[in-house]
Each structure stands twice: as C-alpha cells, then as structure tokens.
C-alpha cells in the first residue's frame, strides 16, 4: 500500500517530463529558454495569421462594403446591403440548391460505395492490395486532367460513354449538354475521384477494429448481417463521421470540374458556391456580392469544423 502511494509521484513525473521542456520550472539556462518555444512556432503562425486569419477577418470587412477589383481604392460601407441583395438574387438560390444537391449526392454515393468496397476489398491477398491502389489512383491525379478526360468521354457525339451505351443497345445520354443531366455528370466525376480515398480510409478503420471482438461475436453465433450493423458500423462511426465532414467540406468547395467542364452551365444548372464567388468577384466585378457569398461559405465550413472538433473531443473522452 505504502509503496503504491510513493510510486505515484514518479509516474506523474515521467508523464510531465514527457511533455515539458527540461528547464521548464525555472528559466535557469537563461531567458532564451522561455522564449524558445514561441520563437519556434512564430514563423508558421505568421503565415497562418497572414493567409488564414487575416483573410477571414478581411472578407467579413469586405462583405459590408461595396467594392470592385477594378478600383480597390474605393470601398464604400453599405452595411448588410450585400447580403440583402444576395438573398434577392434568383441565381444565388439556384447556386445554393445546386451546391446542396451536389454535396448530398456526392457524399452519400462516395461514402456508401466506399463502404461496400471496403468490406469487400479488406483482405490480405495481394490482388486486393493492387485493386486498392488502383481505385485510389484518381485521387492523386490533377482535377484538370480528370475533368478533361471525363469531358472527352462524355462527349455527346464522339465520346466513349455513349459508344458503350450504344454497344449495349441503350440510348445515348446527354451528359454535360443538358440542364437535367449536367449536375449528375459532375457528381459521377467527383464520386469516381473520391471513392478510392474513402475506401482506403474505411479499410484503415476496419483494420483498427480488434479481431477478438469478431471472434467473440462468432462464438455468440451472431449472424454476418448482425455483426455488420451491431459491431462493424458502430466501431466505424468515428471513421464515418470523419469522412462525412471531409467529403462535405470538399464538396462545398468544388470548383475545378465546373470551371473546366461546364462553366456553371448549361443555364446555371451546375453553378455552385465557389464558382459563383469566382464569377461574381473576378468576372463581373461584384466584389460586395462575392465577399458576402464567401462569408456564407465560410460560416458553413466553420460550422462543420466546430461540429467535427466537438465530436473529436468527445471521442477522446470516451477512450
């Protein structure tokens, strides 16, 4: 008993020694030792301050002003006028709906398909490793090339996809050339690009589930389906949540595919938030509207980030 009581301070000591600088209690080795950690983090934090935190403040400032890239000297305070104007734009509603629809479809398909693929491909044999690498490969290819490649394959007259459909005896599809199908086509490209990444993340998650839980379930005569939704899915919930957040944020910021494949068309059917901000700010010189839309996007991403952090910290407490 007595020994245990004494042993404790030493254990605590080891833990604190792990995290702390050694001359931590007294700057005995000179004042520099107290300043050193700050000096080490300063360069990185200066960059963050200048290129993350200052812009976040600045875009809010800009969203309350009427301004244009044509004449940056003249910024006129207009209060909430940019936001009121934005919400009166029919276009903006279209953009929000498009972004929402695109996000829901991409996230749902991207995660759902990846989950099935992960359950299937999470095996030891070499062939599964090769397939994992293969489906991951689009993720590291420039979106420029992915977009152009799919654009070529989706070409209504000469494209490979319609040729395949025709060979199968199916009617040709309109792909990017029709307001009804253009958004879906973009979803297809995004899912194709992201599903491999999601699969690999799921596989990493599956592999971190201890094997003995499955063995226990087997001894308890749990059926495969039951094991799946009673053990696998709950154990994967942190992974699922992570993918939801990451995929949603990246769907919100979709730009490259739109800029290259559709320019928001036909008839604004594929215009989404970042592209809208880009158009308003850089092409139409509507700085105020663009910055107001940026603030809204920032709010959405910030909200997701907060939810993510809250979830992460809760998860830490569980363990």
């Amino acid at each position, binding site marked *: 008993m*007595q020994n245990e009581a*004494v042993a404790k301070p030493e254990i605590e000591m080891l833990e*604190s020694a792990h995290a702390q600088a050694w001359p931590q*209690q007294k700057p005995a080795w000179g004042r520099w030792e107290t300043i050193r950690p700050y000096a080490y983090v300063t360069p990185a934090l200066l960059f963050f301050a200048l290129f993350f935190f200052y812009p976040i403040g600045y875009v809010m400032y800009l969203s309350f002003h009427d301004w244009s890239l044509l004449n940056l000297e003249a910024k006129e305070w207009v209060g909430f006028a940019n936001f009121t104007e934005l919400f009166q734009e029919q276009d903006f509603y279209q953009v929000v709906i498009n972004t929402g629809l695109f996000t829901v479809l991409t996230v749902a398909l991207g995660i759902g398909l990846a989950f099935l693929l992960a359950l299937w491909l999470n095996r030891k044999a070499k062939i599964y490793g090769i397939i994992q690498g293969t489906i991951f490969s689009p993720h590291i290819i420039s979106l420029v090339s992915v977009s152009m490649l799919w654009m070529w394959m989706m070409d209504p007259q000469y494209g490979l996809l319609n040729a395949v459909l025709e060979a199968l005896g199916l009617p040709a599809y309109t792909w990017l050339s029709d307001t009804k199908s253009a958004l879906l086509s973009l979803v297809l490209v995004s899912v194709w690009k992201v599903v491999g990444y999601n699969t690999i993340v799921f596989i990493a998650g599956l592999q971190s589930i201890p094997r003995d839980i499955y063995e226990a379930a087997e001894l308890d005569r749990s059926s495969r389906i039951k094991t799946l939704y009673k053990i696998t899915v709950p154990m994967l919930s942190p992974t699922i949540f992570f993918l939801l957040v990451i995929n949603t944020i990246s769907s919100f910021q979709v730009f490259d595919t739109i800029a290259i494949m559709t320019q928001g068309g036909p008839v604004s059917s594929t215009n989404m938030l970042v592209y809208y901000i880009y158009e308003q700010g850089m092409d139409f010189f509507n700085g105020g509207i663009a910055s107001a839309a940026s603030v809204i996007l920032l709010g959405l991403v910030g909200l997701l980030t907060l939810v993510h952090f809250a979830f992460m910290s809760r998860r830490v407490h569980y363990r």
Partner: protein
Amino acid sequence: MAEVTLKQITKKYENQAVIENLNLSVPDGSFTVLVGPSGCGKSTTLRMIAGLESITEGELQIGNEKVNHTPPGKRDVAMVFQNYALYPTMSVFDNIGFGLRNRGLSRVETKKQVEEIAEVVGLTDYLQRKPSHLSGGQRQRVALARAMVKKPKVFLMDEPLSNLDAKLRNQMRVELTSLHKQMGTTFIYVTHDQVEAMTMGDQIVVMNQGEIQQVASPIDLYSMPANLFVAQFIGSPPMNVVSMYNQPSCVIGFRPEKAAIDVFESLDTVAGKGLMLNGVLVSREILGSELLYYVETKDERVVVKGSTESIIEVGMNVRVSVDAKHLYFFDRATGTRIIGEKRKAMANSVIGGIA
C-alpha cells in the same frame, strides 16, 4: 574525477515533494550505487545530478563547484540509460563521436578517440553499423563507449543492465566493475536490484520514499542494517521478523542463512543460547546446493536456509534456533535498529525463550 555532493536537495513536482532535504556525499573515485524500490526517488536523484531534472531547493556540487544551473552538456558527466538511448539514425561511429564533435573537437581528433574507445569495448568491426543492426549486448557497449569517450568526471548509470538477459547481465556486471577500476572515475549507479547493488558497489545508498535509509559498504549494510527497511531490503530471501512477547515495543530479526532447523522431538531439551521457535514445516524450495524451508510458527511465518545434505519432509514439526549474536532488534514504531547496551539487555531476555 570529482566528488559529488548533494546538500539539502529537495525536488517538487507541482508542490508535491518527491525528495526532501536529501544529503549525500559521493567520494571521488567511488562506485556508489543508489538502490531502492521503484518510486523511491533514486532515478530522480541521478537525473538531478545529470542536470536532466531541475533542482527545486538545495545545492548540488560536482568537484566542489556548484552546478545547479549548469546545463547537462556542460557538467562533464556521462550517462548510460536503461534503454541505451542510442541515436537510431546515426552509425555507431557517429553515436560515439557526437558528443566529442559538440565539444568542438576536430574531425581527426574525434576519429582517433572514437577508434581508441571502440578498441577497448570491442566494437571496432561495427563502427559503420546502425544501432538497429546490433545485438542487445553490442548496443549496451555502444552506450558505454559513448559515455566513456568523453572522459567524464562522473559516470552516471540508470539501470543499464535491466534490459539484458540474465547471463549477459552477470557478464556485464563483472565488466563494469573492472571498467571502474581501470578508469578510476566516480561511478553513480542506480538499480532496484539489491544483488546488483551488493556485487558492484563499494558504497551503497539505500533509499525509500524519497529518503536515504543508510549509506554503507555492502558488508556493513548486510551485517549492520540501520533499520528494518534496510534489513529486509538487503539479502535474499529477506530477513525474518518476529514479534517479541516480553518486549512489545520491539521486533526481532534474523537472517534465513543464520538460523538452524531441526526436527522437533520434545518440548524440554537443550538450554539454548539464543532464539528458539517451534513450528510446522509448510513448504520448501530446493535451489540446488541449498534449500529454503518455510516454517509456520504460532503467529508468524519464517524462512530458513538449509543444506540439501539432509532434507526435512513437509508437515514435520520443526524447531528453528538462532544464535543470540545473529539476532537483530528493531524499534517497532520507528524501525530503527537497537544497538549497544540496550541490545545486550534484549538479547539476554530472549535467550532460551521459546515462542
């Protein structure tokens, strides 16, 4: 070469004192071993001497110079860690030479000294290897060489042998002792293993709960323990402790190897010259040339070392007798050993006594 002096050293972690007012003098050229159970503060003491832990209060001197605020690299001490702490990305050569280069030694001089020391510890053929390609024993040698090459005033070792297997550990013990003789440098060695302490040290510091219990040579520690803690910590199996009926404020101690055991025939018999305990032999452990008997007396259980020449069967009634000169008396409350006239009186009072 230097002596190390700790004066009124206190170490606190967030206002909780781990060590309080510790005084210790490590003579120049000695092989001093700090020994005690885990959590006793021995490692913390060593790390304070190394400069890896700050000292909350008190004064630390190395070679008559106060070094409380000297950074570890400038104290002229070297340390061998339990897990060797080799630089995994550097070759053996660079591991040994890193400290020399940091002291501003030239490349040529470094090379010369590293090669010299490699010769001494038998690493010449391994200088270009990475630590991950060495055996445990070889890593241990690299750690030693890295410390030796600096020719430090004081050599610190924190349980350096505990990661080795038993055979290698015995071999390294011998090597370290002879190394100490060759170098003549002050060694301070931390271990929880009392056998290691007894076989290697010439001065042993027994610590418990952040306090020094006794500082003595191995022989004195064994034959003249300052208190009950030391008496029971040193020696294997530990000293037996039994109550004293006529003196409730004291307890009696005796070492298993100093007691005799006989099959108990009748109550009367000899007028003994010491302590006698009657009991039942409940189990025994054969160690080879010796064996251990576990005897249960009325209230206590004692261990006696016997020889394998005549073995007593379990279940027999036995008598354990201890010569009066091998008895130790301790104050029950403080644990301090009772000496002098008082001891004499106590010894007399137990003679022939049967518990």
